[in-house]
């Protein structure tokens, strides 16, 4: 309770400072709207449905691209961990491409796919894929050999070995890779949406972009807050419970 109160008063202070800065008129009120104006924008955007529509469009792109990235990345990671040939080829490629900021895929995606949903998906998949490949490979390579040996003597082999021993043993690595992939995908999608107007749907990034075009600062800040909240919720709803489970089972300290 005490922690909650401290955190709450911290954020209340931030809001007060913001309001005070707005009232002191140090900057033009166009550049720094009051918290109230931002809230009113969010209310109206929620009321006329633009906010919900944009959020749905953005989340759909993100989730579909992310899932494709996972579905491709996990098997690729297993292949690179299992066979030297894949490690030297796909593994090296993944390592290289992972260092490439995923927003760098945007120009290429636009030329290849034009202003389409495919371009958006491509950017998200590229953001997710390589982190997942690398994390899966690292995870599998770090499985202590003794687990394998113990499982072998108990009659585990091939698919059973992969699904009941190696993948579970590599889970902590894989989950952290999934989390990193999620973060990369989210960032690259926002960059892509801000850069590119796609007629098939206005996402949150596009709302942000039009906020700038219209000099509507309350819209820019309001959408930024929505983006932050979505990021936080994804973490709390999807990743935190899994990480808590891993910490409890493995006995690693909770960071």
């Amino acid at each position: 309770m005490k922690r909650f109160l401290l955190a709450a008063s911290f954020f209340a202070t931030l809001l007060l400072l913001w309001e005070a800065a707005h009232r002191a008129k140090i900057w033009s009120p166009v550049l720094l709207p009051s918290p109230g104006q931002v809230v009113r924008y969010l209310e109206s955007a929620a009321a006329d449905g633009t906010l919900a529509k944009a959020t749905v469009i953005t989340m759909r792109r993100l989730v579909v691209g992310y899932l494709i990235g996972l579905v491709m990345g996990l098997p690729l990671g297993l292949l690179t961990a299992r066979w030297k040939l894949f490690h030297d080829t796909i593994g090296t490629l993944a390592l290289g491409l992972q260092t490439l900021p995923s927003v760098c895929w945007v120009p290429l995606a636009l030329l290849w796919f034009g202003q389409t949903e495919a371009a958006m998906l491509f950017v998200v998949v590229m953001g997710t894929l390589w982190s997942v490949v690398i994390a899966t490979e690292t995870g599998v390579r770090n499985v202590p050999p003794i687990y394998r040996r113990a499982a072998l003597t108990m009659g585990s082999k091939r698919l059973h070995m992969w699904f009941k021993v190696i993948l579970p043993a590599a889970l902590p690595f894989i989950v952290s890779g999934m989390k990193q992939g999620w973060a990369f995908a989210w960032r690259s999608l926002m960059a892509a949406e801000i850069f590119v107007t796609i007629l098939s749907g206005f996402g949150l990034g596009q709302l942000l972009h039009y906020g700038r075009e219209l000099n509507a600062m309350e819209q820019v800040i309001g959408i930024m807050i929505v983006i932050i909240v979505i990021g936080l919720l994804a973490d709390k709803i999807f990743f935190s419970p899994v990480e808590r489970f891993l910490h409890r089972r493995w006995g690693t300290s909770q960071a």
Partner: protein
Amino acid sequence: MSKNFRSASGPVLALDRVSLNVAEGEFVCLVGASGCGKTTLLNIIAGLEKPDSGTVLADGKPITGPGRERLVMFQEPALFPWLDVFGNVLFGLKLKPNLTNKDRRDVAKYYLELVGLSRFEHANIHELSGGMKQRVSLARALAPNPRVLLMDEPFAALDALTREQLYGDIQEIWKARRKTIVFVTHNVREAACLGDRVLLFSPHPGRVQEEFTVELPRPRDINSVDLAAYATRITKALKSFGHAGATVTG
């Protein structure tokens, strides 16, 4: 049941023309300094490694790979951290065909009770002490009902008190279940306490140099005077190989 084994492995001769027979229900201890090849021998019996020459026979058939008739209990607990205690004991059972899930659960429960850990069936592995982990390992190895139990210095990392308790437990379980046990250790007293027969290894290359038959009534107390006399004789023999690597700790 017999095992015949002759091998020379690799450029370093880990085991040189080793031959031994283990009878059904026998408790055999392999003793020697670190690096004398006794773990290699155990791994070959388990089917985890292959000999370069010679064969191991189990029930007259050559061993070609790992199998659940020969389960291993490793020095470090090889328990799976993603499963709880019960899940670990159940792991090998799930791979055993022709059992209903209820049978499997009952068997797992029985062995957890045998090692005195019924209360901890839902504990996570990291919550257990070293001794408890090795008890779970023992239950996991016993549960699929192997013909042979291979133990590779399973108590080496435990404190003396816990170890003494486990000497009692393992003798009781051996009496109750009549498993064939091959037990690797560098601890002479431990070997004299547990084994029907104690085989002494010399290193570089690994060879079986001498064999002792321990004729003491069971259950044996690791601290008894008679046992100490055996341990002294065995240690003397070990030292005569010119490698005083083995330890005589209680």
